[in-house]
């Protein structure tokens, strides 16, 4: 049935098919184009995102660096603080100290006192020790101990009956005074003409002065308690 109508309808359908094919082809092409446009847009957005991320990271790097330097400064501050603490402990007598210095040994006079004389003149008194310690401090002593008792800022040298109290501990002759400092200075300070040691010598006290390259002075072993005192500038120091 190869009629004319058949040919016409086939031709018509082919025409429509051609139109559809062309439109579909163009649509697909435009979709692909828009997709590639979208790809460009996407890449641009990605680039922007990555760029902003990079900027953020760069800022983070800067802030981290500043933090790091802060930490380093803090570390420095801590180290300084620790050094300060050590020095404070050394000054307070809370740390054992060793170094060049002198060892002074004092003992009561072996002379027998005559009748009518004051026996007190022939023994070492707390006053003597105080004067000697004071003299040593004036001569640049950095640390002093008497019979192993570290002399601190709060240390008392006090007569208590027949004994002497240092850091509330009783000590008895012979008194061994250990001092860290410049040995020559300390010696010359003690042996100064008209000095206290000379007077003691006159009284017949047994005095032995010995310079040493290495004097060991123990730490103060007692407690330190501030019942009434409080630091005034504590906050300022903390900052």
């Amino acid at each position, binding site marked *: *049935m190869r009629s004319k109508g*058949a040919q016409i309808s086939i031709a018509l*359908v*082919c025409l429509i098919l051609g139109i559809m094919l062309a439109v579909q082809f163009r649509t697909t092409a435009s979709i692909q184009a828009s997709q590639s446009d979208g790809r460009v847009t996407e890449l641009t957005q990605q680039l922007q995102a990555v760029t902003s991320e990079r900027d953020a990271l760069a800022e983070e790097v800067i802030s981290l660096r500043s933090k790091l330097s802060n930490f380093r400064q803090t570390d420095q501050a801590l180290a300084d603080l620790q050094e300060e603490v050590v020095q404070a402990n050394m000054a307070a007598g809370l740390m054992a100290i060793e170094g060049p210095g002198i060892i002074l040994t004092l003992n009561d006079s072996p002379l027998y006192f005559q009748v009518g004389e004051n026996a007190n003149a022939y023994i070492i008194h707390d006053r003597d020790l105080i004067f000697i310690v004071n003299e040593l401090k004036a001569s640049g002593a950095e640390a002093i101990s008497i019979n192993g008792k570290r002399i601190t800022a709060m240390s008392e040298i006090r007569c208590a009956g027949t004994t002497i109290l240092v850091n509330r501990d009783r000590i008895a002759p012979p008194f061994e005074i250990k001092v860290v400092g410049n040995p020559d200075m300390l010696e010359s300070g003690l042996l100064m003409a008209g000095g206290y040691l000379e007077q003691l010598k006159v009284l017949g006290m047994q005095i032995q002065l010995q310079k040493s390259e290495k004097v060991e002075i123990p730490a103060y072993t007692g407690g330190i308690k501030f019942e009434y005192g409080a630091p005034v500038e504590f906050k300022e120091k903390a900052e």
Partner: protein
Amino acid sequence: MWLLVVFCLLVGLIIGFSVPVLLPVIYAKYMSIAVLAALDSVFGGIRAYMEDGFDNTIFLSGFIVNMVLAAGLAYLGDQLGVELYLAAVVVFGVRIFQNLGIIRRYLLKKY
């Protein structure tokens, strides 16, 4: 006959390319299925024409109904979340190949 088919196809393509009508992207899929259905119908028509079993009514109705049905099936599949248009693609693809094979055999017999 062949001249007519090719000529009409070319004219259609020219018209399609020259007319500045673009399908919205969301309908492009349905259009592609419809194109597939149309291709199937055309090849089926040519085959029927060569077998002398061509029925104008069947051809035209098949052309239109297949197109609409294929597009509708694709749309329904989209609504249901099932890619039903694949069924249309497979069926039409198979039929196009079958029709082409039959046409080829007829042509071989003829010449």
